[in-house]
């Protein structure tokens, strides 16, 4: 739940600001290089100097993954309902409404279908900027429906994860989305329909403990935080500092939980290659 923690003492390697700030020129978080926004976009939001992957959202992923003009969004306006009348320091309903206004998104995921290298796929892509990419009822339902499109049309399914985990303000409902989404993926597996999971920074909590870890092939962008418990929680539990590179993509590949790490600039090409093998 990295999104909630923005206290000053918490600026540590696991909370590096990856989002792209406004303006024409951007300073790379990692190497301080000043890069023009157009140049960054052409390089798929990867620093040409140090390879730092800026955090991007569904809009950007869809823009370079699909064959031009083939992507069609589904269930765009599905939105959360404050079933529990959840109030913390703010009412959940106000949080939803202000986030929708701020981000121009309706929830933390967008779905649709289109062609990648001529292969038709159904896709779901999460957006971290919507309440920390948290998984609630809308994320669960949209994944379920997108999976159903794959089942019905017998086309591969892809999820791009970017999430702090389950959405607390939907309490038990959000927990049940782990079961709901996984059950659909089990159906895809029985029907032998390929499911590819793409992990970006960060992928933690309930998202990792369900669909993110269930891909036939799992790929991850470089240096993305991927884990179940967040680094802060682990640090507090064990009372020790965490080793360098802990829970990063390369660590997950080394420990056997990610098939390969892929640079965003090669993501589309690698995806096409894998899709060809799985079809």
């Amino acid at each position, binding site marked *: 739940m990295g999104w909630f923690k923005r206290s000053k003492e918490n600026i540590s390697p696991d909370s590096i600001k990856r989002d792209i700030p406004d303006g024409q020129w951007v300073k790379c978080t990692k190497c301080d290089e000043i890069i023009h926004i157009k140049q960054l976009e052409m390089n798929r939001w990867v620093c040409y100097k140090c390879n730092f992957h800026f955090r991007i959202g569904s809009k950007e992923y869809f823009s370079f993954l699909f064959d031009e003009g083939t992507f069609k969004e589904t269930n765009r306006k599905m939105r959360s309902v404050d079933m529990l009348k959840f109030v913390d320091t703010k009412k959940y309903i106000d949080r939803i409404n202000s986030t929708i206004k701020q981000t121009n998104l309706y929830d933390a995921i967008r779905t649709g279908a289109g062609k990648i290298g001529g292969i038709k796929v159904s896709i779901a892509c999460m957006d971290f900027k919507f309440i920390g990419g948290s998984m609630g009822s*809308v994320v669960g*339902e949209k994944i*379920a429906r997108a999976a159903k499109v794959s089942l019905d049309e017998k086309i591969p399914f892809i999820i791009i994860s970017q999430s702090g985990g389950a959405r607390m303000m939907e*309490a038990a409902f*959000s927990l049940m989305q*782990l*079961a709901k989404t996984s059950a659909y993926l*089990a159906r895809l597996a029985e029907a032998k329909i390929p499911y590819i999971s793409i992990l970006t920074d960060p992928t933690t909590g309930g998202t990792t403990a369900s669909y993110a870890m269930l891909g036939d092939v799992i790929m991850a962008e470089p240096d993305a935080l991927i884990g*179940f418990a967040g680094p802060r929680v*682990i640090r507090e539990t064990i009372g020790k500092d965490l080793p360098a590179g802990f829970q990063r993509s390369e660590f997950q590949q080394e420990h056997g939980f990610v098939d390969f790490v892929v640079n965003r600039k090669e993501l589309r090409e690698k995806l096409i290659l894998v899709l060809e093998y799985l079809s």
Partner: protein
Amino acid sequence: MAANILDFEKPIVELENKIAEMKKGVYNHDISKELAQFEEKVTQIKKNIYSNLTRWQKVQLARHPERPYTLDYIYTLTKDFVELHGDRHYRDDKAIIGGFAKIDEYKVMIIGTQKGRDTKSNLYRNFGMANPEGYRKALRLMKLAEKFNKPVVTLIDTPGAYPGIEAEQNGQAEAIARNIFEMSRLRVPIIVVIIGEGASGGALGIGVGDRILMLENTWYSVISPESCSSILWRSWEYKEQAAEALKLTAPDLLEFGIIDKIIPEPFGGAHKDHNAMAEILKGQLKIELADLIKVKPDKLVQSRLEKFDKMGIFEE
């Protein structure tokens, strides 16, 4: 013992102690009338307190250190238990136990998270917080049950999956995800019972099934009230409010359609009478088992998918 009395139980305990003292004393007049009045008062207070528990008080009851744990249920409500150890990959996790057992005429695979009662046993059981090998052991036993057509019963009482370096290194997330995935298509009945704490993915890792039951004084949610407080309020002090906001009690979840049934506990909580609690649970398990073993595997799996598919509230 005194340390195990919850705050809201204090008025009851005080009165009960007073009555016990009165009974021991020697009097030159008849105190039976007075005594009866006190006893009446205790009953009244108990009724008042236990029927008006706040959500946080129920969380406290769910964590009561004298509550029956998985092994207590196994020893009282099943017989011929054969414990099966290990995940066949790495090691045996002591926080999740499982094996074959008989519930009267039913042969089942019973699996549950296990807490300890004192510091030593809690260290041994890792406070009921499982590691990946625990979830993988549970899955191995469930696949074994499927192979030999035995229903699965899981008992959940965990503050969460263990958040440690080794746990992450060994794929805590993958282990839980795999279990959820496989449980959603397991071709034998699965009955899930929350017997204490049901915290997040650590609970759901053995918590997907055809019937989800909760004991009366337990909680089940995506996060504990304390962690929720620390994240949303940035302080550990708001656990009561967090418990209210999360709506994590059995009646809440029954209302939301997330669980199927609430299992009543003996008056004052399961810890007051282990045997009575086990008897009640046994009766409920037999009702569900009788029902579920009649269902064909295809139908069972299809209904399970539909059950979880319905969970979620949104608008279009």
